[in-house]
């Protein structure tokens, strides 16, 4: 069923989309209903993840990419994630600073998100936010992760193409051997390539890629030297993105990745529905008693959890 809100979003209404995105982030009950009806209109956009350590120039690179895509008359959505303070729950979202020149372009929609305690480099709502922009008919959706190290690999699961941005002088060859985002990126960008060590880093990456072989299908990741501030290397990067998109379609890899993504969304939905189902039915008195038993070691968390689940289901 198409609600009035969905109708507006499908027509590209920024105010309506902005509001739904807020509801999704704040997890209002309405948001799930709207997401249900938006889902059929998704799956058209090419989703590009941009990740890498803090300060390598992710936002600046995205700014330059927006310019290139707009020149080709493609519409662009950007979702930029910054960390939430664990002490205050507040967040300073500053990725827009580098992209503001696009804020008056009707073909560009930029949204900043706080990670809100989510750890994989994204935020809990990111996938749903992508759906909204997708339904708005954006051709390209760029997702900027929080400044990420080697463990923030969620982006690999939600993007069609993942770009890892590095800069020269970030660590020795040993770093290259480590698992994680290095293994999964589809394109490598060495930004600030005018700094010493860019060619060295490129060589180290090449060696790493040869040793690792082909973990993610037949694709051979390109390594691009760039100076995003001056727009250097951006054309080459766009060509590489389009080459990857072509590869994804022709090799059947796109289908495979989208299937994996559907599975991930399904399991996440199961977990969160189950969690709220049980939270709604949990008996506080019973919970207190269980906690006492746990502290006194009369029971264990595993049996106690099963007990709660069984009781919740019997209640209905």
């Amino acid at each position, binding site marked *: 069923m198409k609600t009035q809100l969905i109708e507006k979003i499908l027509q590209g209404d*920024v*105010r309506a989309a*902005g*509001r739904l*995105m*807020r509801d999704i982030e*704040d*997890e*209002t*009950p309405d948001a799930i209903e709207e997401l249900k009806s938006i889902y059929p209109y998704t799956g058209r956009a090419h989703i590009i993840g941009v990740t890498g350590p803090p300060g390598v120039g992710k936002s600046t690179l995205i700014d330059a990419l927006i310019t290139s895509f707009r020149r080709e008359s493609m519409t662009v959505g950007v979702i930029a994630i910054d960390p*939430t*303070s664990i002490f*205050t*729950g*507040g*967040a*300073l*979202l*500053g990725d*827009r*600073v*580098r992209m*503001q020149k696009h*804020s*008056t372009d009707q073909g560009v*929609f*930029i*949204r*900043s998100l*706080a990670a*809100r305690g989510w750890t994989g480099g994204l935020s809990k709502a990111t996938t749903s936010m992508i759906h909204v922009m997708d339904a708005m008919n954006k051709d390209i959706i760029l997702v900027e992760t929080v400044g990420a190290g080697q463990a923030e690999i969620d982006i690999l699961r939600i993007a069609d193409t993942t770009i890892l941005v590095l800069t020269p002088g970030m660590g020795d060859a040993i770093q290259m051997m480590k698992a994680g985002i290095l293994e999964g990126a589809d394109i490598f960008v060495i930004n600030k390539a005018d700094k010493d060590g860019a060619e060295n880093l490129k060589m180290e990456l090449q060696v790493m890629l040869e040793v690792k072989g082909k973990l993610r299908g037949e694709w051979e990741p390109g390594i691009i030297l760039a100076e995003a501030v001056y727009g250097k290397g951006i054309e080459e990067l766009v060509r590489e993105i389009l080459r990857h998109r072509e590869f994804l379609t022709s090799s059947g890899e796109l289908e495979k990745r989208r299937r994996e993504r559907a599975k991930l969304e399904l399991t996440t939905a199961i977990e969160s529905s189950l969690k*709220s189902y049980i939270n709604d039915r949990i008996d506080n008195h019973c919970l207190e008693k269980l906690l006492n038993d746990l502290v006194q070691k009369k029971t264990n968390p595993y049996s106690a959890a099963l007990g709660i689940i069984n009781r919740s289901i019997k209640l209905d």
Partner: protein
Amino acid sequence: MSPDRKLRILVAKPGLDGHDRGARIIARTYRDAGFEVIYTGLHQTPEQIVNAAIQEDVDLVGFSILSGAHLTLASEIKRLLKEKGADDIPVIGGGIIPDEDIPKLKEIGVKKVFLPGTPLDEIVKWTKKNVRPRR
């Protein structure tokens, strides 16, 4: 289950003056108060600010102006918010603003003006009391 909405605030620096120390301090203060703050950087046009406010679905726009152009810039921000159907987003401001202009800003629709020297916790207190997350 009523969701616990987080306040989202746009800290904007419209016009030509290049001093954003005040804006940055406010942005940080708001962050430390537990709000989500979007900062857009220097030299913003009213149109850029209003578009960002709508894309980000903020509950408040706070501007900092030291250039003397506050009356022009504030009325343009208010006008564009209205034009784009977003004039439910309140606007507050701060910076170097002569006393006699404060009533004029209020008339334009600026809800509150904070002058230099205002204790930061007063600003936070005012914001918590007067700005509610939508719905």
